[in-house]
C-alpha cells in the first residue's frame, strides 16, 4: 500500500494547524513519517490534549483532606474512610451519539466504565446527563430512543446500575445532542492503580478486543471539529459496543489487580493505542517500545497508521512486573481473553513503534502527552447578553388561572417524570440501591460498612446562557443541595463542560466564566473538583448549543439508615420551607414554557445562605426530624410541592398557606429562588425542630401540612391553587411518553 507523503498539506488534512506542523518539525528536527503525523494529529487534537481548556481549568479548586487523586488521571479518587475510596468521573460522547445514538451512547458508557475500573475500582453506579433538541425536531424522538436504549443495554449487560441522571430538551440541541455519562467505583484506598509506565524491561501487555479498522479518526477528531456537510463522510468512525467483552475485561482486570503483578494500566479510549502508550510513558517519565505485528487484529493487512489510530473499543494496555507474563496471561485466559506481550518499558522517554522490526514511529512521550501544546485563546463577552438582560418583569402578564399554569409546567418535558427513561435502566442490580431514581439524588449503600453515598448529576444551561458565571455557580449549588436533601454531605465533584467552538472568542468567554462561577461555588461550599471532561465544538452549521457545564457530585452519609427522599409520607405532617422566596422570574422554566421568554438574570445566589440551608437540612435528616426533603428547582415552589406529593406508590395532598407579601403570585409559585428546601416534619417533632431552626440563623417558615386529596395553596387569604393531586400526578407521570409517541397514536 502506498503511504501518503508528509507535508503541510497532509498535516492540515489531518486537522493540525500550520503552527502545529512547524512545531513538529522543530521538535523532531525532521519530517515525521505518516504514522507519526497521524499520532501527532490525534494526540494534539482538542479532545486528547485539552489545548484550549488546559490553562483555564487550573482555576478549579482540586485539593481537599479526602482527595487522594485529583484531575489528570483516568478518574478522581476520594477517601471515604473504612479503608475505602471512591473513584469517579464523567465523560461526554456527544458527537458519536448524534450520528448513531444507540451505539454512540453505548460506547460512551463503555468508555467511562473503563476509566473507572482501570484505576482498580469496581464500578457500582452510573448516572447519565442528556440534552436533546425540541420535540418538533424530526430527529429528536429517534435520538432519545436510541440514546436511552444504548445507555441501558450497555450498563444493564455489564451489571452496573444506572441510578440517576437528568434529561432536558431545548432547541439549541437540535443539531448537537449531549450525552454525558458518569460512573463511580469503589476500591481499597491503598490499592489504586495509575496509568504509568515504570520499570525498565517490564512487559507491555495488550488485552481485550482485537483491533479493527473501526473508529479511525473517531472520537478524537469527531469531537474536535464542528458538524457540517462533511460529517457524513466521517460516519463509519462510529463503533459498535460489546458490553459482554467489557464485562469479561472488567472481571479479569479486577482479578489481576488483587495480585501483585500489575504496575500500571490504562484503557484505550479515544486515540487507542497511541494515547495509552504515550500517556503511560509520559506520566511515568519512561519510554515504551512495542511491536505492532503482535497486536491482535480483527482484519488482515492493517497498517501501522491504522493500528495506532484505531479506536476499537473494550481494549486495555497494561504494564506488569517482569516475569509475571505467564501468570497475567492465565488470569485473562480464565475469562476467555487474550493477553499479548507487545513490548516493554524503556528509559529513553521515547515511544518506539516497530512494525516487523522496522521503526514505524519514534517520538518523545511527553510532548505528545502531558506537555502537549496549549493555547490562551481570545475571549469576548457575547453581544446577545446585552439584549437579554433587558427584562422587565412588569411586562409579563400574571396569568389568571394558576391551576392551568401548574398543569402545563408539570406536563412540560423538562419537569415531567423521567420514569420512561430510567425504567429502561437496571437501577437495582448489585443490591445497593437504597434510594431509586425519582428523588433529588440517588443513594447507594456501601456493603461492609454503615455508610452510603448520595449521587447526583445536574446542569442548567438556560441559566448558563443568560449569565454564565452565576449559572455555573447555581449548577454546583443545586447539585450539592440535591445531595443534602437525601442526607449526604458533599465530598467532591466531577464536571463535564459542553461548549461550542473554542476558536470563537464568545465561546471561550462563556467557558471561562463558567469555570470561574463553578470554582467560586466549590470554594465556598468546600467541594473540590477531582476529575472532569471538556467537550468543545458542539455546534452545527455555526450555531452553538447553550453553554452546558454539567456536574456529577458525590456525597457521604455516615449512617445509611439516615437517608431521606423527597416524598411526603404521613398525613398531618407539617411542611416547612427553609430559605427565602424572592420576587424572581428571570431564566425560569415558567417564563419559558408559559411566556416563551428566555431572558432576565437567573436567580440570585447567596452562597453562605445556601451553605446554611443545606447544613440545616442535613442535620434535620440526621436527627430524624425530616420525613422528607426536596429542593425547589425548575418550576419553583408549586412544582416542588407537587413532586413531594407524588409518592411512587401513593399520592398525598398538601395544603399550604403563605403570608401576603409584595411578591407577585407567579413568582411566588413558579419563580426559582435558590437555596430553598421543603421539609416535612412529624407534628410531635415540631418543638424540637423549631429549636434547631431558630439556632441555625436561616430563614424558615411552617407553611402547611400534608393531607387531603388536592394540592392547595392560599396566598394572603386568596386561593391560588387548588387541584386534585391524582390528576396532577397522572399528567406528570405520562407526559414524557405522550410527547415522544403522540404522533403514532393519532
Amino acid at each position, binding site marked *: 500500500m502506498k503511504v501518503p507523503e508528509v507535508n503541510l498539506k497532509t498535516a492540515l488534512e489531518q486537522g493540525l494547524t500550520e503552527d502545529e506542523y512547524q512545531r513538529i518539525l522543530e521538535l523532531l528536527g525532521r519530517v515525521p513519517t505518516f504514522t507519526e503525523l497521524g499520532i501527532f494529529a490525534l494526540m494534539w487534537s482538542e479532545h486528547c490534549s485539552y489545548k484550549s481548556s488546559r490553562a483555564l481549568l487550573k482555576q478549579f479548586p482540586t485539593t481537599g483532606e479526602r482527595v487522594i487523586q485529583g484531575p489528570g488521571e483516568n478518574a478522581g479518587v476520594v477517601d471515604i474512610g473504612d479503608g475505602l475510596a471512591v473513584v469517579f468521573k464523567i465523560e461526554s460522547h456527544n458527537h458519536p451519539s448524534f450520528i448513531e445514538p444507540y451505539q454512540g451512547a453505548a460506547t460512551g458508557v463503555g468508555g467511562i466504565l473503563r476509566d473507572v475500573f482501570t484505576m482498580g475500582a469496581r464500578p457500582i453506579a452510573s448516572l447519565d446527563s442528556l440534552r436533546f433538541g425540541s420535540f418538533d425536531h424530526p430527529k429528536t424522538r429517534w435520538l432519545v430512543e436510541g440514546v436511552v436504549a444504548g445507555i441501558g443495554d450497555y450498563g444493564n*449487560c455489564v451489571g452496573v446500575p444506572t441510578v440517576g441522571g437528568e434529561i432536558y430538551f431545548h432547541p439549541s440541541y437540535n443539531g448537537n445532542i449531549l450525552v454525558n455519562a458518569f460512573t463511580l467505583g469503589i476500591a481499597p484506598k491503598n490499592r489504586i492503580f495509575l496509568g504509568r509506565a515504570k520499570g525498565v524491561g517490564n512487559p507491555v501487555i495488550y488485552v481485550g478486543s482485537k483491533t479493527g479498522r473501526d473508529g479511525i479518526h473517531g472520537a478524537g477528531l469527531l469531537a474536535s471539529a464542528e458538524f457540517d456537510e462533511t460529517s457524513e463522510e466521517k460516519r463509519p468512525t462510529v463503533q459498535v459496543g460489546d458490553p459482554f467483552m467489557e464485562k469479561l475485561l472488567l472481571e479479569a482486570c479486577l482479578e489481576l489487580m488483587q495480585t501483585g503483578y500489575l504496575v500500571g494500566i490504562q484503557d484505550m479510549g479515544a486515540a487507542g493505542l497511541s494515547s495509552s502508550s504515550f500517556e503511560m510513558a509520559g506520566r511515568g517519565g519512561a519510554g515504551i517500545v512495542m511491536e505492532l505485528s503482535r497486536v491482535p487484529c480483527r482484519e488482515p493487512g492493517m497498517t501501522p497508521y491504522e493500528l495506532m489510530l484505531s479506536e476499537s473499543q473494550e481494549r486495555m494496555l497494561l504494564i506488569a512486573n517482569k516475569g509475571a507474563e505467564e501468570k497475567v496471561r492465565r488470569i485473562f485466559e480464565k475469562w476467555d481473553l487474550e493477553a499479548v506481550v507487545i513490548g516493554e518499558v524503556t528509559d529513553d522517554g521515547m515511544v518506539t513503534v516497530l512494525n516487523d522490526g522496522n521503526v514505524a514511529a519514534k517520538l518523545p512521550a511527553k510532548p505528545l502527552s502531558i506537555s502537549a501544546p496549549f493555547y490562551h485563546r481570545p475571549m469576548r463577552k457575547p453581544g446577545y447578553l446585552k439584549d437579554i438582560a433587558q427584562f422587565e418583569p412588569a411586562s409579563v402578564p400574571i396569568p389568571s388561572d394558576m391551576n392551568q399554569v401548574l398543569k402545563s409546567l408539570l406536563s412540560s418535558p423538562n419537569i415531567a417524570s423521567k420514569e420512561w427513561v430510567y425504567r429502561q435502566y437496571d437501577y*437495582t442490580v448489585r*443490591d445497593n440501591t437504597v434510594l431509586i431514581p425519582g428523588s433529588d439524588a440517588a443513594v447507594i449503600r456501601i456493603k461492609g460498612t454503615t455508610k452510603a453515598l448520595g449521587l447526583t448529576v445536574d446542569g442548567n444551561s438556560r441559566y448558563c446562557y443568560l449569565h454564565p458565571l452565576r449559572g455555573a455557580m447555581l449548577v454546583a449549588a443545586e447539585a450539592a443541595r440535591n445531595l443534602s436533601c437525601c442526607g449526604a454531605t458533599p465530598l467532591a465533584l466531577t464536571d463535564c463542560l459542553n461548549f461550542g467552538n473554542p476558536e470563537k472568542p464568545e465561546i471561550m468567554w462563556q467557558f471561562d466564566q463558567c469555570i470561574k462561577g463553578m470554582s467560586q461555588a466549590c470554594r465556598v461550599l468546600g467541594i473540590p473538583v477531582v476529575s472532569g471532561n471538556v467537550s468543545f465544538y458542539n455546534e452545527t452549521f455555526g450555531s452553538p448549543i447553550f453553554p452546558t457545564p454539567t456536574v456529577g457530585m458525590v456525597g457521604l452519609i455516615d449512617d445509611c439508615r439516615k437517608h431521606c427522599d423527597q416524598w411526603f409520607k404521613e398525613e398531618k405532617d407539617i411542611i416547612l420551607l427553609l430559605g427565602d422566596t424572592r420576587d424572581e422570574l428571570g431564566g425560569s422554566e415558567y417564563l419559558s414554557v408559559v411566556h416563551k421568554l428566555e431572558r432576565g438574570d437567573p436567580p440570585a445566589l447567596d452562597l453562605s445562605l445556601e451553605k446554611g440551608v443545606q447544613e440545616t437540612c442535613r442535620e434535620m435528616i440526621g436527627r430524624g426530624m425530616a420525613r422528607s426533603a426536596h429542593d425547589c428547582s425548575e418550576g419553583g415552589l408549586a412544582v416542588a410541592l407537587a413532586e413531594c406529593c407524588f409518592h411512587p406508590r401513593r399520592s398525598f395532598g398538601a395544603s399550604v398557606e403563605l403570608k401576603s407579601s409584595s411578591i407577585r403570585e407567579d413568582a411566588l409559585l413558579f419563580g426559582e429562588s435558590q437555596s430553598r428546601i421543603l421539609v416535612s416534619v412529624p407534628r410531635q417533632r415540631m418543638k424540637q425542630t423549631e429549636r434547631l431552626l431558630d439556632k441555625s440563623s436561616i430563614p424558615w417558615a411552617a407553611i402547611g401540612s400534608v393531607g387531603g386529596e388536592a394540592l392547595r395553596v392560599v396566598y394572603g387569604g386568596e386561593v391560588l391553587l387548588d387541584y386534585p393531586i391524582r390528576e396532577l400526578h397522572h399528567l406528570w407521570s405520562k407526559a414524557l411518553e405522550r410527547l415522544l409517541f403522540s404522533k403514532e397514536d393519532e
Partner: protein
Amino acid sequence: MKFGVVVFPGSNCDHDTYYVLKEVYKLDVDYIWHKQTTLSSYDCIILPGGFSYGDYLRSGAIARFSPVMQAVINFAHQGRLVLGICNGFQVLMEAGLLPGAMLRNKTLKFICQDVHIRVEDKQTPFTTLCREGEVLRLPIAHKDGNYFADAKMMKELKKNHQIIFRYCTPEGTLTEEANLNGSLDYVAGICNRERNVLGLMPHPERYAESILGNEDGKRIFDSIITYLSKEK
C-alpha cells in the same frame, strides 16, 4: 446446608445472590465456575440473573452449553433443588429443564420496576412458607421476560399446577396492566413437573434486606431453607 451460585461469563447477579446467602443468611455458599462439572456437595444450585454471554443470540442460549449445565441437569434429575432467577430462568428453559421460552417484552424495551406477583401454589420447596394467594413485591429488570409456551405446554403446566407465580396488582388481581412484559397467562414463575426446579423473572435477592426497602424476597429464601432443613 450448602448453596452453589453458578457464574457464567456475563452473569451479573451472582454477587448479589451470593451476598444474600452469605451475609444476610450466614449460610454456606460457593461460587460455581461455569466449567465445573461436579455438584455433588450442594443442596441447592442457583442460576443467577445477568447477561450470560451478553445474551447474544437469545437470552440464555449460549450459557446452556456450558460444561456446568450437564451437571445441573443431572443434579436436577436427582431431585435436588435448582432455582433460576431472571437470566437463570432463561437458561433453564433453553436447557430444557423448564418448558417454554421468553419473547421480548411487549413494550420492546428493558423494564426495571417493582412488580407484584401472586403465589399460586405453595406445594414447592421454594414456596413452602408462602400462603396461596399471597402477594409479593419484587423488582424485575429484563428485556426478554414475555413468557411463551404453546397451547399443549400451557395445558400441561396448568394441569400439573406448575405455574407458581403470576403478575398481579398490589391487591392480587390479574390484569394486563400489571403484566408489564406481556407474559402468557401472567406467568412470572414456573416449576418443573417434579417441582424441584423453579424459574422466576423477578429478583428475590434484591429485596432481602430492610435497608433496600422491602424484604419480600426473603419469603422465597426462607422457604428453601425451611424445606432443606426439614429434609435433613
